[in-house]
């Protein structure tokens, strides 16, 4: 690439204007000198929003895992009251997203902020790497997927099991069979037992409120969720206890365990149509124990999630998918179909603008499983879901949990 051939379609040379608020200038290679220098089209301005336990790791994934040459130009967290300078350190993510020198945003806030900040970032022209779980409720996921499409941005969920899953030939055959439409009926089932940290993330109900720490913007932390008195576990890792911010162990671990499986079984473009749970009545504020959740898809495929920590197992056995499940005609048709495409990593997606594996649509469909499971637990009723309209059918009260209203000024 010659000096004159350099383009700066997204990676731009910054002017030090007052409005820019940037203190770092990204200098093109033709100024620094040619061979061995990273061309400016490969240099990215990055921001981390949510600097808690997962923050550093999420941002470092941009470089380590995704091989992007990205500089952290901004760090944002609601607990930076008193130290925010609105140049490198922020409490308000909106100020970060206004910056013209930020290209990529890594989001590691609690989940009740994931969708809103993802959408806002893409609306501001940024690509997004967002920690799991993608969302707190179903309508958020659809809004994120729509935003990625609307703005032509790249969204990747921060869990990568589907990549490893997709590199195995047997798994690729399973996916091929499941997405072919040839397997009728589908009697496959997958039982995932344990690993949901149910007890760990079931919440305490006897916590007294306390003064808000001086360094915490509590109003902004609550954001779209109800503004309630500050109970210390609502902030920090134990936010996972609360329906307001996450949804217990299903919220925390569901996306990790289920995302590779939605790829494997070809369910990353749809959602379950019937959901049933075994659990005690739910507490209004915090997640609790559950025994199992059964989620059946329209084609007959069933996921069963078993906590292994309470109650009895669901009574279902896993049943895989084999080529022999198809008749000879089906096998011949399958042979003529294309194999699953290799998944594109986030780094490649950012550079080439191809959609990554774990894009917003796929991540949303995985998260739907967890959210429907939690709705069945919270309502204590069997749920029927329309995966096209993305509404619960025949139960308007349960459907209120699909898209609960947000606290102003936050909205999807």
């Amino acid at each position, binding site marked *: 690439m010659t000096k004159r051939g350099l383009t700066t379609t997204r990676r731009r040379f910054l002017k030090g204007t007052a409005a820019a608020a940037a203190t770092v200038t990204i200098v093109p290679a033709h100024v620094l000198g040619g061979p061995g220098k990273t061309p400016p089209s490969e240099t990215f301005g990055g921001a981390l929003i949510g600097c808690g336990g997962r923050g550093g790791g999420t941002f470092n994934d941009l470089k380590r895992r995704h091989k992007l040459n990205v500089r952290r130009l901004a760090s944002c967290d609601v607990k930076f009251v008193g130290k925010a300078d609105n140049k490198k350190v922020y409490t308000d993510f909106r100020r970060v997203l206004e910056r013209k020198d930020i290209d990529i945003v890594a989001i590691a806030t609690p989940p009740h902020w994931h969708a809103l900040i993802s959408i806002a970032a893409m*609306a501001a022209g940024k690509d997004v790497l967002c920690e799991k779980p993608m969302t707190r409720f179903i309508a958020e996921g659809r809004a994120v997927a729509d935003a990625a499409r609307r703005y032509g941005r790249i969204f990747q969920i921060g869990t990568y099991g589907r990549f490893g899953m997709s590199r195995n030939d047997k798994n690729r055959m399973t996916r091929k069979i499941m997405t072919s439409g040839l397997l009728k009926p589908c009697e496959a089932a997958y039982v995932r037992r344990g690993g949901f940290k149910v007890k760990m993330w079931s919440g305490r109900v006897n916590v007294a*409120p306390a003064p808000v720490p001086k360094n915490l913007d509590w109003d902004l932390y609550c954001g779209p969720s109800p503004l309630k008195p500050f109970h210390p576990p609502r902030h920090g890792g134990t936010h996972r206890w609360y329906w307001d911010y996450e949804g217990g162990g299903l919220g925390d671990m569901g996306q990790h365990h289920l995302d590779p499986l939605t790829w494997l079984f070809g369910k990353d473009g749809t959602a379950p149509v019937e959901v049933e749970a075994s659990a005690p009545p739910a507490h209004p504020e915090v997640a609790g124990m559950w025994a199992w959740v059964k989620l059946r898809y329209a084609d007959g495929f069933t996921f069963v999630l078993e906590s292994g920590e309470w109650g009895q197992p669901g009574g279902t056995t896993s049943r895989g998918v084999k080529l022999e499940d198809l008749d000879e005609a089906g096998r011949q048709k399958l042979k003529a179909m294309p194999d699953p495409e290799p998944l594109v990593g986030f780094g490649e997606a950012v550079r080439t603008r191809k959609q990554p594996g774990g894009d917003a649509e796929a991540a949303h469909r995985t998260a739907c499983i967890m959210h429907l499971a939690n709705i069945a637990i919270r309502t204590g009723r069997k749920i029927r879901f329309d995966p096209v309209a993305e509404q619960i059918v025949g139960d308007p009260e349960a459907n209120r949990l699909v898209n609960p209203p947000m606290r*102003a000024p936050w909205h999807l």
Partner: protein
Amino acid sequence: MAEKPDVKALVETMPDLDSRKDKKGKVHTTGKLTGPKWPDAEKVYEAILDGGREAVAAVVDLLEPIDDGRDYKARYVLAGLAAFVCRDGREKHRAVYDEALASRLGGDRPKPVRAFLLRQLQTAGDKSAVAAAGKLLLDEDLCEPAAQALVAIDPKAAGEALRRALPRADGPRRLTIVQGLGVVADAASARALREALGDADREVRIAAGWSLARLGEDGSVEALMKAADAKDRWERIQAARACLLLAEKLRAAGKGTEAARLYKHLRDTRRDESERYLREAAERALAPST
């Protein structure tokens, strides 16, 4: 005459908090609650509901002003009742539950308690709760939970209540109501929302733009295009978003020409390199489909 249930005793049958033993055998509470099996809980719920509105209200009266765990059983029962009365065939019980909670929304009951009741009505409330919740839309602390309950319970009635309250609302309440009108896509609020595009509060302006987009009316095209020319960067981004959302709705409604006006406006006004992505989004939307 049926005997009145001993509500306090019924609430007390809910499990104690989980506990564990330490190495010395001493029992400690974990503070966590593993609830009963549904059949056992249902017996309690039935007994309370069969006691009528007064019995449910008696559970409400067990709530402490502050949620610090002392009343966890009462809160747990009220939430369980909310889920229970939403089952098919429980319409009469649901009416009892809703009326009881609505009856406790007024007066000088502590606001955190009333906010909790509004959230249970957000789960299980029906039309009978609308009037009581609507009265709280101008309350500084209860406007938000009241609005959220209303839009969940009955979007049409919520629109009417929010519209009525808007002229008298200021500050955060005005913002909540402007946004709530968008949540329920209250067409009758279009003029008021277009006026709100000129509000002194940036967040109200942004909420008004979003709400107008939600209404999906071509009558708002001109106003949203003007709003999209905002100088403040965050507002400009959000206003552009409102334009795109409205354009999508118009296109889906077969009003492609009006949608195209919005896309063309963004294409023509987003000339800065930092806004190229918006120009490209508009150009993609304008490209003829093959």
